[in-house]
């Protein structure tokens, strides 16, 4: 039967249990009343309590903006909104993003999405709101609502939709995407692109397919589940 090869290696493993010593395997006993390993609540608490404290401390430090976190999301659509974005070192170019073969998000797109890649070297965002659709429920991340703003470095986003009131400083339009210099990302050769020294976008709204940020500082972080997105 298929079960037998599954049993043998495990029986070989059992004597390795340091505490059990010479106590014979429970195999002679009927299952259920056998002596078997289990979790001791007090022992688990020895680790659970400090771990919870550390996790709480991490969350608090992040929410105060003292600790930067890193983001790398891709393959699932998510929305980012902010009342204001200020950035230095801005690049933008078009491209085609391929989904993983057989991805459930494929729909009628044939697995390819036309995207706009925006890269910003340093950015600060006011009242950032980010929502990810987790199938039925949305995960909502809000930050930067207070006096301190969200800051991000090496922010790269692949968007399908981008709207807002933008103002650029020192903009160069119509470069080849492979010659971009302002944010350190280079696009494919022969693709239209633009770059600017500074950018300011009010009432930003993006639908993204991928985002990466080297360091994200999120003061006033709130994480919650909600039925509606941003």
């Amino acid at each position, binding site marked *: 039967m298929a079960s037998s090869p599954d049993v043998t290696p495990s029986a070989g493993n059992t004597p390795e249990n340091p505490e059990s010593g010479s106590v014979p395997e429970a195999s002679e006993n009927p299952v*259920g009343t056998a002596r078997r*390993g289990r979790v*001791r609540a007090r022992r688990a608490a020895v680790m659970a309590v400090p771990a919870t404290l550390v996790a709480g401390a991490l969350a608090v430090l992040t929410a105060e903006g003292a600790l930067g976190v890193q983001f790398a999301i891709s393959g699932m659509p998510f929305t980012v909104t902010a009342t204001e974005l200020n950035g230095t070192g801005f690049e933008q170019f078009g491209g085609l993003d391929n989904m993983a073969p057989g991805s459930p998000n494929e729909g009628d797109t044939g697995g390819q999405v036309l995207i706009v890649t925006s890269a910003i070297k340093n950015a600060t965002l006011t009242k950032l709101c980010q929502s990810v659709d987790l199938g039925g429920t949305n995960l909502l991340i809000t930050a930067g609502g207070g006096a301190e703003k969200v800051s991000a470095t090496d922010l790269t986003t692949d968007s399908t939709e981008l709207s807002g009131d933008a103002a650029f400083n020192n903009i160069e339009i119509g470069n080849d995407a492979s010659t971009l210099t302002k944010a350190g990302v280079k696009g494919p050769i022969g693709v239209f692109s633009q770059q600017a020294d500074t950018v300011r976008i009010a009432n930003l709204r993006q639908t993204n397919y991928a985002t990466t940020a080297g360091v994200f500082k999120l003061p006033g972080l709130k994480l919650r589940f909600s039925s509606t997105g941003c």
Partner: protein
Amino acid sequence: MNGPDGFRSAFRRWRADRPFWGGLLLALGGAWILLTMKASLKVILHVGMQGLAGYLLPALMVLLGLLTLFNPAQRLFYSITGILVTLGTWLTSNLGGFFVGLLLGAVGSCLAFGWLPDQEPRRGRRQRRKEAAAAAP
């Protein structure tokens, strides 16, 4: 020992001598985090060492979870490393896979840490008290 019953009892016995849920949850947590962040390799290389850590930590979580299952003797080391790596993913990997993976990994590590082999069968508190009362006089 043949048929589905034999397989099930064999599986239960296999489960009984290792921190099954601990290892499983830790591995699942790592897998979930990896699922939420499949950024393209080109971008990762651009971000540099930090971007690589974002992948390394959840991959380690999966590895440690599986090792807990298949080499339960070393579960203390695996669970302590597991909890540290799990907490590290908050910084490197999408807030620990949007918190879900972090929670799975932390619960898994704690279960693996608290697990002991060869325990008495579980008894209720009332039953224990009754036994103590019977033994007292």
